[in-house]
């Protein structure tokens, strides 16, 4: 059972209250950490090999070490609870089931980083979840976990929930900062990185909800032990959230060596595809990640293993499509999202995302011409050529996120695009798959 170190208490009645959390040993890691020097805490997080769970998989300890020690300015922690990447919902379930691990994690990070003010930036649509956090924060103040002197350490910490208002781009860390400062969520050019100049021009760490909520576990079992549970460069376990055509969609805590094939088919995990159908394609890390074909699913759902395959672990969102699904339709729907959400600052992204959407819609609706496919790929390449990932021409990675999947869909399922163009129609009776018909009529 080594793989359940984060979620073992989820769905236990009462665990998401402060009393229930304490009963399971909650806040003992914070006590341990407060007896350490801040530098030792950062070092321990490095040893744990914890990687950021927000999308880029950046090593957390390393990120923390970029925060200048001698700055006279206040430092900030921003917890990224924007969770708007299509397919992603692990942070929401985490906040519902285990809000106090997040709270304890915030306190731990604040001690390590010398932070006295933390903001949890939560997407506006998560109204009930914002209420859960408000209540958890109030409970932590009442118990001396937050406030003037956390657990009588002399360290002051204030924590606030800040609601977004509906814009995917505010999940990008610098878009988040601009939004938190009361403006449009336009990403900033980097450098300077937030660690040096972030919120209100002060050193700021932006970390994902899961990243922060994992900290208590690391200090409970010990950073070396945590590292040893994972892969060489990715410590611990991770959360994935599976959606689409599987029998048991949900949030799973998985070992780093689990393959997508097993995650999808094993009874212990998602239990296969409804109707005994076959899997056709899987998006392994949220809608920004390149699609995998059925043949490619024997790869571990881990950062480095995916990287060598020109793919990414991303936000942990695994989107499964069975053999009845139209790949053109899937690519079109994803590209519609990016066209909608581009903030419009950079020309390739502003112009290219709606252009790709229009071409894909044209092909899906049966009006595609042979030259459209080359045009589509050339528009995408002008934003960010793929493979590999990370060659984008834009201010933020939304451009890459829009351009990379389109190229992967065309590259791996070219025959379906060509068939649409040749037959002047979508050849699939149910473009989003047979299950799409079955579910809503149940």
């Amino acid at each position, binding site marked *: 059972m080594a793989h359940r170190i984060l979620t073992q208490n989820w769905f236990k009645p009462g665990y998401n209250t402060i009393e229930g959390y304490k009963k399971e040993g909650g806040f003992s890691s914070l006590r341990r950490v407060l007896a350490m020097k801040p530098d030792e805490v950062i070092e321990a997080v490095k040893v744990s090999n914890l990687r950021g769970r927000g999308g880029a998989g950046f090593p957390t300890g390393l990120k923390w070490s970029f925060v200048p020690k001698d700055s006279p300015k206040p430092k900030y922690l921003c917890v990224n609870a924007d969770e708007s990447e299509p397919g992603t919902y692990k942070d929401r379930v985490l906040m519902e089931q285990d809000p106090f691990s997040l709270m304890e994690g915030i306190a731990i990070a604040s001690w390590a980083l010398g932070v006295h003010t933390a903001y949890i930036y939560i997407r506006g649509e998560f109204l009930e979840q914002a209420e859960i956090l408000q209540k958890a924060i109030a409970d932590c103040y009442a118990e001396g976990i937050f406030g003037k002197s956390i657990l009588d350490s002399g360290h002051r910490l204030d924590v606030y929930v800040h*609601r977004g208002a*509906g814009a995917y781009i505010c999940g990008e860390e610098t878009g988040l900062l601009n939004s938190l*400062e009361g403006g449009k969520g336009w990403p900033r050019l980097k450098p300077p990185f937030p660690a040096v100049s972030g919120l209100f021009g002060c050193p700021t760490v932006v970390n994902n909800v899961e990243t922060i909520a994992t900290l208590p576990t690391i200090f409970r079992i010990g950073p070396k032990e945590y590292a040893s549970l994972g892969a060489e460069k990715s410590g611990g376990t991770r959360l994935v*959230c599976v959606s689409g055509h599987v029998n048991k969609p949900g949030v799973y805590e998985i070992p780093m060596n689990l393959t997508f094939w097993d995650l999808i088919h094993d009874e212990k995990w998602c239990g296969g595809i409804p109707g005994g159908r076959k899997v056709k394609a899987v998006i392994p890390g949220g809608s920004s990640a390149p699609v995998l074909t059925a043949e490619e699913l024997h790869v571990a759902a881990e950062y480095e293993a995916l990287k060598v395959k020109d793919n990414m672990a991303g936000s942990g*969102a695994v989107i499964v499509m069975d053999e009845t699904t139209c790949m053109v339709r899937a690519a079109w729907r994803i590209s519609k999202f990016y066209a909608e*959400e581009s903030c419009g600052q950079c020309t390739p992204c502003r112009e290219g995302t709606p252009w790709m959407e229009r071409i894909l819609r044209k092909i899906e609706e049966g009006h595609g011409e042979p030259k459209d496919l080359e045009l589509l790929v050339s528009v995408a390449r002008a934003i960010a050529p793929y493979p590999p990932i990370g060659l984008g021409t834009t201010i933020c990675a939304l451009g890459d996120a829009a351009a990379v999947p389109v190229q992967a869909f065309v590259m791996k399922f070219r025959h379906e695009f060509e068939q649409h163009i040749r037959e002047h129609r979508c050849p699939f009776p149910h473009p989003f798959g047979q299950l*799409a018909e079955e579910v*809503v*009529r149940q």
Partner: protein
Amino acid sequence: MAAPFTAEQQRRFDEEMEKILARFPEDRKRAAVLPALHLVQDMLGWIPEEAMVEVARKCETTPEQVREVATFYVMYFLEPKGKHVIDVCTNISCSLRGAEKLLAHLQEKLGVELGETTADGLFTLREFECMGACGNAPVLQVDSRFHMDMTLEKADRLIESLRAQAAEKK
């Protein structure tokens, strides 16, 4: 310009704003713009121009800047909306489990186009992007509250119960 709030509302606005502004440094009052706009919408159901002026005053910024923010985010309504806003997610994970059917069904049932409000003012129907509940697709929200694992029948029951609630209040 007419005052946006009644005296009672003004009192609540002033009180809540004091709490919101306390979360930010003295010289960074603009950071309160998003929470302030949420507050206004909570009280009035939407955000009229006059209220933006009030928000700007409290947050020590310009009405133009507030307006720019209000138009950037899709959750803010700049004109009156229906009593209930129904947002149906049609992003990939929801579409893979029937969201397009669900949306078409609701459009027909309510007799509105996307973004429109029913003649009785009860419902505004919108198509929405991923809401972070993809494991329980298809998903919709009524006034930012989740309704998951939707079916056509569940959607019908939901609409009926909201209609009944409204009729009772009359």
